[in-house]
């Protein structure tokens, strides 16, 4: 199979998956017991008010028509109107997304660096105390609720030592504005990038200070899987003939380990980064809530408190689409790098 036909086939497979996902969300929100409008008001409204509200949101239409409207709306990029303030859910999600993206990118970097470093060390000292401790670290990091770790960090570095902020994305008034050349303005919403574009090192420093604890928290929790993956892959590679040959030729242990064995682990690590994307988003929801980080996860949690069902549905659909898209890209990238996949 050529790369082209693989890509086309993979895209075609994504369409029914997304459709299934959208239907699942629709079923959860509209068909499961529990009327969104009633739950929203918690019995404090007159029947007439409830009818009016239901009409405004289009919930009085037949189910199949609601389903059609919902899919058509999504095609136009319309995620509906919030039940709490009647503003566009899509707009709110796009405003909140860069904060989540920035947190996710930094957490992923920390997770991979920490995981690969520890995994490589463990494989070098196979079956030693160091190896065992690193393996235990991998399992412990998996079993810690991310918000608990976050709170422990807040207690130590924020409340105890007073060296790092415990919440928020940046202190008020310090938000970087991005590139401004005359009338031309450009900002990404990623504060690190924006403060570099603005050319203000103090803002970059402030941004990083606020980013450090949340991304470290999420990064550590996600690093376990990379420790395990790097360790097992390198152990496998270190047994292969070409590694023995390299050693026999007199290459240093360092060169063998990092130049030969680690290189072979890159492809699985890349795949795992794609697979962990869903876990990353789930972790981001809890991390954002812990650190009052104004991203998508916090938006979702806030809306749960308001029982704002259109917003909840919108955020969930957005998360789902994002994960489907990332896994598509990773699969294509993988097929490009490893031609065996296409067979």
């Amino acid at each position, binding site marked *: 199979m050529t790369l082209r036909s693989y890509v086309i086939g993979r895209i075609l497979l994504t369409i*029914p*998956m997304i459709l*299934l*996902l959208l239907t*699942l*969300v629709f079923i*959860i*929100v509209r068909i*499961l*017991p*529990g009327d*969104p409008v009633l*739950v929203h008001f918690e019995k404090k409204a007159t029947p007439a008010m409830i009818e009016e509200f239901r009409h405004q949101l289009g919930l009085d239409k037949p189910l199949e028509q609601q389903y059609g409207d919902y899919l058509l709306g999504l095609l136009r990029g319309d995620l509906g109107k919030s039940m709490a303030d009647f503003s566009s859910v899509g707009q709110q999600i796009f405003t909140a997304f860069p904060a989540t993206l920035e947190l996710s990118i930094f957490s992923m970097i920390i997770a991979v660096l920490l995981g690969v470093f520890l995994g490589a060390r463990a494989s070098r000292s196979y079956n030693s105390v160091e190896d*065992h401790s690193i*393996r235990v670290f991998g*399992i*412990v990091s*998996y*079993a*810690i*609720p991310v*918000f*608990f770790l976050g*709170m*422990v960090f*807040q*207690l130590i570095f924020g*409340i*105890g030592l007073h060296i790092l902020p*415990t919440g928020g994305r940046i202190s008020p008034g310090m938000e970087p504005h991005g590139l401004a050349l005359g009338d031309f303005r450009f900002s990404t919403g990623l504060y690190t990038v924006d403060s570099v574009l603005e050319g203000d090192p103090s803002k970059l420093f402030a941004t990083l200070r606020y980013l450090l604890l949340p991304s470290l928290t999420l990064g550590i929790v996600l690093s376990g899987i990379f420790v395990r993956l790097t360790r*097992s892959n390198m152990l496998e590679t270190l047994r292969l003939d070409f590694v023995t040959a390299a050693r026999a030729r007199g290459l240093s242990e360092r060169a063998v380990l990092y130049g030969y064995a680690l290189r072979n682990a890159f492809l699985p690590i890349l795949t795992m980064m794609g697979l962990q994307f*869903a*876990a990353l*988003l*789930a972790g981001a*929801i*809890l991390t954002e*809530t*812990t650190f009052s980080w104004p991203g998508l996860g916090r938006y*979702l*949690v806030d809306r*749960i*408190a308001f*029982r704002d*069902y259109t917003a*909840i*549905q919108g955020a*969930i659909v957005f*998360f*789902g689409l994002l*994960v*489907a898209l990332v*896994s598509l890209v990773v699969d294509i990238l993988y097929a490009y790098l490893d031609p065996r996949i296409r067979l």
Partner: protein
Amino acid sequence: MTDTQTRGRIVVQLIPGLASLRKRGLAGWFAVIGLAMVFVVVLMTATAPWISPHDPNEIGTGPVLGPPSLSFPLGTNHLGQDMLSRLIWGGSTMLQVAALSVLVCFIVGVPVGLLTSYAGGLVDRSASLAMDSIYAFPGLVLAIAIAAMLGPGVVNMSLSIAVVYVPSYYRIVRSQVLSIKELPYVEAARTLGASGRSTLLRYILPNVLPSVVAVATVNFADAILTAAGLTFVGLGLPISTPDWGWDLTYGRRLLPSGAWWVITFPGLMIVILALGFAFVGEGLSELLNPKLEQ
């Protein structure tokens, strides 16, 4: 009859397995330590009415936000409730939710996986697609969606967690069935005239179950963490139920006062319980797949 036989055989296989666990190196130690951790938590929860020094819900048992002291070894919270008593009682919700969701996953995931993958063809492909769609979805997000709609309660919480993890069971069962059903002994059974039903139950299922048990143990840890996460985003049980997840959630608001004891102990309990199951799962999967660790 077949069913009891199968179950019996598995139990019989597990017992000598347990006895020789410690002789099997690190994996065995993982399993033993993990089992011990889980056992301690279960024992503490089961004996809560007798060992708990105070009523976990009684307001004003001690001072407001009192640090650990001789009379209140783990301190008190903002309502003056004894944290030690809340800790002792607080595990039961987590254990119930985890056990119930694992049970639901088992009851749904295993038969669906067995039947659809044994049938093959279109049935198998559509089931695969549906399960993969759920599997690809960020688990916590899906659980949040379902829990938000179903409302609070142990059963609802367990169901919303179960939906997320059914695909893991389905996938492991499917991969096992696909490889086992082509093995000569299964073919021999079929040639000798075994019906589809007895092939599945007597020849395939017993070989699928050990992997499912390993998945289920790790799944216990996942379910506990997801339940804690659901509580943290405000979808937990009513306040009247002592629950580690709830104490941790509320403790976040008390952090600025420096009341470290309010979050540290319930948090550690969740870690111990999840870690216990994760250790058992790690040990079991290695003991069941000795090829992985050479």
